[in-house]
């Protein structure tokens, strides 16, 4: 008899989600899906408010990557003003974006995913968390905490606040960066570099023991989309969009992010608050693509910094042109952190950064503005429409995690089909199986608050459904 299994809440991710598994009459997995259950409606609730308010408001989409929303929003505002911002403002924004990639990836790798990696994916759930890790390997965890602290501290030094910094807006930034602040940033660099080198060695040494997960927990060809600079290198703040396929072919290049709506579109579904964007020429759902660390390393020809380039060359050898295993998001994240630390150090030597010319002043010059950047989880677009007084009439936000939603479903489906075990009484849902489903999602480090513009934490629930749709088993961690 067919049945549906629900896992709820999904834990060690940002936001609220469930997984449902539909079994057929033979007790085999027919399909498995990931559902996001929170929604806030920023695209509507911003209406009637001045566009200058948007960086502060849109920042509240997310507590992990508020900086990305501040930047995309500020850039949409720059376009509404019709200005080119001063060099110091652009460099401060770049600096804070690198710091955010660092802190957000540290959270994903050390706080959320390393319990699976270091304690084992089948280890007891009550200990499989940062507190269990604290008992097993306090030095590893402390280094992770301090890497996140470094990123957050840079954001605080530049932006005045760790979460929801209000320093950037249409036309530039509001605070000058000082040499005393530079000196503090520089003090963190050696430790950060050492910690990342250690983490990379550790992860690479563990990969052999996760061979089944690498191969069957989200390994499929797809398109990959990311921003690159004018030389085709890794870029986070401003560049053009490149799309490659699973075989390493470039599908599209030099696309203008300000015209995203001419090549990307979104699809709505009834069983999740997350939408599925797709590449228009390929249609829906064939045009689905992945974004974020794995996609960025797949689309970029080089990183542009010494240590990250060495790692990137090695990384690219793992795939035939494109690395398709979502498990390698973890490795990609560490390489991006190495790059972020190198870029932060590089910026400290840039005299432009310290200038007191930080704001381009203008009144409203356009009625439509689009801003994009690479958020930790992938490419982010903010699209605003305003009236003659600069009051918002409409907004569209295309969020990184949303762009990975189809891939997350595919990962969950593949994982369920490969890892479900069968005993005398049919399908057996053990803790290792449940955790693999969640770990498949954790690879993407989804920010569900962002993806649905929602707020709050969501647990994961797995439901086992009968062919008629009846819930046969609902699995939680405590069972």
């Amino acid at each position, binding site marked *: 008899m067919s049945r549906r299994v629900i896992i709820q809440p999904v834990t060690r991710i940002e936001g609220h989600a469930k997984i449902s598994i539909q079994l057929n009459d033979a007790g085999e997995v027919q399909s498995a899906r990931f559902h996001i259950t*929170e*929604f806030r409606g920023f695209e509507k*609730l911003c209406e009637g408010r001045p566009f200058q308010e948007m960086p502060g408001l849109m920042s509240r989409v997310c*507590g992990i990557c508020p900086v990305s929303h501040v930047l995309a929003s500020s850039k949409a505002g720059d376009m509404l003003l019709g200005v080119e911002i001063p060099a110091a403002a652009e460099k401060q924004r770049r600096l804070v974006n690198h710091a955010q990639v660092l802190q957000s990836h540290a959270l994903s790798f050390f706080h959320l995913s390393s319990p699976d990696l270091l304690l084992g994916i089948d280890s007891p759930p009550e200990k499989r968390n940062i*507190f269990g890790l604290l008992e097993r390997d306090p030095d590893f965890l402390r280094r992770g905490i301090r890497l996140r602290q470094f990123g957050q501290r840079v954001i605080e030094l530049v932006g005045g606040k760790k*979460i*929801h910094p209000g320093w950037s807006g249409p036309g530039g930034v509001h605070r000058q960066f000082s040499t005393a602040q530079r000196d503090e940033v520089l003090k963190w660099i050696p430790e950060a570099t050492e910690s990342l080198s250690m983490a990379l060695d550790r992860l690479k040494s563990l990969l052999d023991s996760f061979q089944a997960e690498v191969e069957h927990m989200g390994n499929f060809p797809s398109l990959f989309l990311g921003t690159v600079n004018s030389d085709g290198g890794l870029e986070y703040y401003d560049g053009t969009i490149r799309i490659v396929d699973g075989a390493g072919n470039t599908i599209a290049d030099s696309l203008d992010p300000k015209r995203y709506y001419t090549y990307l579109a979104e699809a709505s579904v009834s069983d999740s*608050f997350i939408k599925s964007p797709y590449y228009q020429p390929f249609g829906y759902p064939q045009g689905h693509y992945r974004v974020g660390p794995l996609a960025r390393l797949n689309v970029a020809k080089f990183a542009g910094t010494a240590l990250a380039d060495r790692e990137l060359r090695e990384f690219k050898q793992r795939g035939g042109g494109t690395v398709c295993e979502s498990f390698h998001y973890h490795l990609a994240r560490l390489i991006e952190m190495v790059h972020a630390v190198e870029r932060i150090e590089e910026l400290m030597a840039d005299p432009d950064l310290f200038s007191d010319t930080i704001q381009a002043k203008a009144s409203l010059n356009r009625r439509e503005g689009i801003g994009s950047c690479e958020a930790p989880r992938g490419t982010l677009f903010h699209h605003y429409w305003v009236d003659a007084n600069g009051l918002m009439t409409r907004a569209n936000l295309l969020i990184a995690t949303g762009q990975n939603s189809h891939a997350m479903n595919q990962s969950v489906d593949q994982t369920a089909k490969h890892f479900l075990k069968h005993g005398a009484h049919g399908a057996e849902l053990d803790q290792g199986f449940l955790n693999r489903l969640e770990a498949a999602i954790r690879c993407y480090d989804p920010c569900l608050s962002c993806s649905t513009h929602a707020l709050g934490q969501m647990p994961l629930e797995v439901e086992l459904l009968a062919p008629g749709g009846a819930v046969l088993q609902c699995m939680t*961690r405590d069972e």
Partner: protein
Amino acid sequence: MSFLDLDERLIDLAGLVDVCYSPVVDTKEFPENVDITLVEGAVANEDNLREIRLIRQRSKVLVAFGDCAVTGNVTALRNLFKLEDVLNRSYRENSAVVSGMPLGGDGIVPALLDRVLRVQDVVRVDYFLPGCPPAPDAIYAFVAELLGGHAPAAEGRKFGT
């Protein structure tokens, strides 16, 4: 996230408390007899409503943690509009393909409440820790006083960062 900005003080705190239910641990069911629960976020859908009542029932001290829990804040801004209009903007006007609308009632996606509520609109709240987000120092001071058996006092403290 601001809680994690306690950084290495998290390690000190780990020695004092047993974190039994949190987004960072794998427990799926909210446990019985919890001493202190920090609740973040406003009450926006039927799942939230059910969870907050269960949490109140099973917690000795319930803290509304952050501005969304305390006042509704940004989450409650949608109360200025009709829910239908808010959903239509995201899932119809901003979508090229509409294969369905996430309206709930399918046992998967929870139905949204017509109006977003503050935590105190639904259950009794013992303490309010405001801020968007609450500052890490405020969180630490607050939790330290609660753990020390003192009632945290707001007098003379700065909030609202």
